[in-house]
């Protein structure tokens, strides 16, 4: 099977009209994919291995390569076209283009499926955000097909200030979606990003978000929907004195299987990270939240704060959390806290005593739990989030 898979890929690649460098890159990525184990991190091995295999269905993938080729499976809709945003199809990037380095970049987090996505993607955009951007970038990516493998690269140029709204959704019920999203921010830049993920009920999705930051970043993400979701964030804070702020809100119900992994790696001196997870799990949802904050030697004066909180609403829900810290230098402050709770009847009774009915009470308390503390100055954004 292994050889077959590789042969199909090589054949397809050579038949296509994509640039030579991209063919070489994809072949290299496929090799990496083959050589790796499913879960490289021994800490998570026990938890992940069996569950990850659901994503690798070689037959289906071969079928995809043979039949889809390079046709678009994703509809990119730019809701607000802004000046100062330049976007190109990755496939159209020529051999001498400097942007190649962004596509080919390898970070510290080898991941099997991430390599596979890089080898097989058929749709992908490189989006350059420059300083003269007016307004914000509002992009909705709708998967139109049963299988999507895509790679998006966002690049925020030096000194730029950008706002990006990114929404992932799909049309066909039991689709499989594999996305690699890589965000590069240069020095003195500031990026605010809102990622909204709303998949159909039977969808299986694997989203890898690599953040390679030399500037300040703030990400708010809201995830709902899907059946089996793997959401991985690999953030590396490379330059000194930058800030990384991530607020992740997950609303899980039905019989969802949600696995979120978040790595935040402090490399530059004086880097600060604040990561906040909030998940509500209802009905039969199973949620696993893993995060590792690593502070490397040399990242003096760094500060990391991680908070992971879950609220269990149903009898059959399960929340596993593994919040880990790896600290390799002394001149830092790192703190994390995790909690898993249920709704305290006392809190509900308080609302009841003020005439608020059960459904409304639950909504108020859960929204308070999920959204409280999010300083959303933007009313429009807040409404978009509260829509759930």
């Amino acid at each position, binding site marked *: 099977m292994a050889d077959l898979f590789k042969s199909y890929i090589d054949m397809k690649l050579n038949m296509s009209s994509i640039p030579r460098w991209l063919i070489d890159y994809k072949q290299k990525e496929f090799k990496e994919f083959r050589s790796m184990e499913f879960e490289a991190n021994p800490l998570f091995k026990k938890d992940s291995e069996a569950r990850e295999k659901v994503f690798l269905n070689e037959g289906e993938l071969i079928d995809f390569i043979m039949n889809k080729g390079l046709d678009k499976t994703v509809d990119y809709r730019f809701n607000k076209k802004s000046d100062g945003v330049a976007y190109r199809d990755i496939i159209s990037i020529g051999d001498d283009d400097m942007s190649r380095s962004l596509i080919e970049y390898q970070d510290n987090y080898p991941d099997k499926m991430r390599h596979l996505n890089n080898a097989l993607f058929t749709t992908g955009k490189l989006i350059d955000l420059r300083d003269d951007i007016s307004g914000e970038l509002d992009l909705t990516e709708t998967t139109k097909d049963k299988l999507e493998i895509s790679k998006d690269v966002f690049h925020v140029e030096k000194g730029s200030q950008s706002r990006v709204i990114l929404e992932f959704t799909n049309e066909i019920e039991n689709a499989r979606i594999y996305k690699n999203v890589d965000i590069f921010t240069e020095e003195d830049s500031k990026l605010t990003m809102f990622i909204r993920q709303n998949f159909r009920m039977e969808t299986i999705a694997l989203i890898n978000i690599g953040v390679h930051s030399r500037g300040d970043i703030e990400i708010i993400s809201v995830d709902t929907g899907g059946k089996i979701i793997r959401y991985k964030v690999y953030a590396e804070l490379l330059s000194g004195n930058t800030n990384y702020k991530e607020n992740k809100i997950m609303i899980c119900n039905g019989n969802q299987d949600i696995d979120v992994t978040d790595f935040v790696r402090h490399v530059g001196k004086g880097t600060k990270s604040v990561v906040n997870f909030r998940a509500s799990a209802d009905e039969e949802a199973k949620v696993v939240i893993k995060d590792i904050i690593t502070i490397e030697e040399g990242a003096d004066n760094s500060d990391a704060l991680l908070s992971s909180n879950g609220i269990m609403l149903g009898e059959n829900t399960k929340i596993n959390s593994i919040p880990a810290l790896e600290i390799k230098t002394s001149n830092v402050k790192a703190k994390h806290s995790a909690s898993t709770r249920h709704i305290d009847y006392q809190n509900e009774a308080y609302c009841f005593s*003020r005439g608020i009915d059960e459904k409304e009470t639950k909504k108020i308390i859960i929204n308070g739990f999920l959204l409280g503390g999010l300083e959303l100055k933007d009313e429009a954004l807040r409404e978009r989030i509260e829509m759930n």
Partner: protein
Amino acid sequence: MENRIDIEKLSVRIKEKNLLREVSLHVKTGETHILMGPNGSGKTTLARAILGDKRYTVTEGRIEFNGADMLKLKPHERARMGIFVSFQEPVTLQGVNTLSFLKASYESINSTKVTMSEFKNIVGKNLQRIGLPESVNERYVNEGFSGGEKKKFELLQLLLLKPKIAILDEIDTGLDLDSMKVLSNAVNEMLPETGFLIITHNDRILKHIKPTLVHVMKEGSITRSGGLELVEEIEKGGYKIG
């Protein structure tokens, strides 16, 4: 318009423990009842039972509001009927904005809908009266509130929701003199339209509010009921009386 709540031989237990034994109490519009008693005597349990806290089981007796059986109603339904129960230990609702909360409560009790700006007005008037700053509107329910602020927030709700019968559980604890005056003014002002059951630990409030009846609770039962002279007896002899 007269409203009344009738508690008839109410017995309540939690798990295996009997907390209230055949408690009877009647409160009408225009009346102020004071309930006193040592810690653990069951005062808060009574308040909870009137609210309908599901953790407590009613083993016998009745609670009726204007003749209608309350025991089969859920807590929020009882609140909608016009019964307000303040909490001795008000809870903190993480992330829930005070204004949004008050608005949801107001709309539900009054079966109406208001715009946020209308509501802000309504609240604003009362905030001044109570001595809570405008900034309270930006905060989360009871999060980071001092003891006194929490009680004031309860008082704010009392004024906003204008209940028919109000059961106030130790709302006077932790209030400074000015706030105490605000509380008593509010009670006296609302009295023509409201019936009050004030649960208290000490008699400070009696200097400002004239009670209709004073009750003493001990070990789950009301042992004595009487006028102000009862309070004097307690002051002299402690709760040993009755």
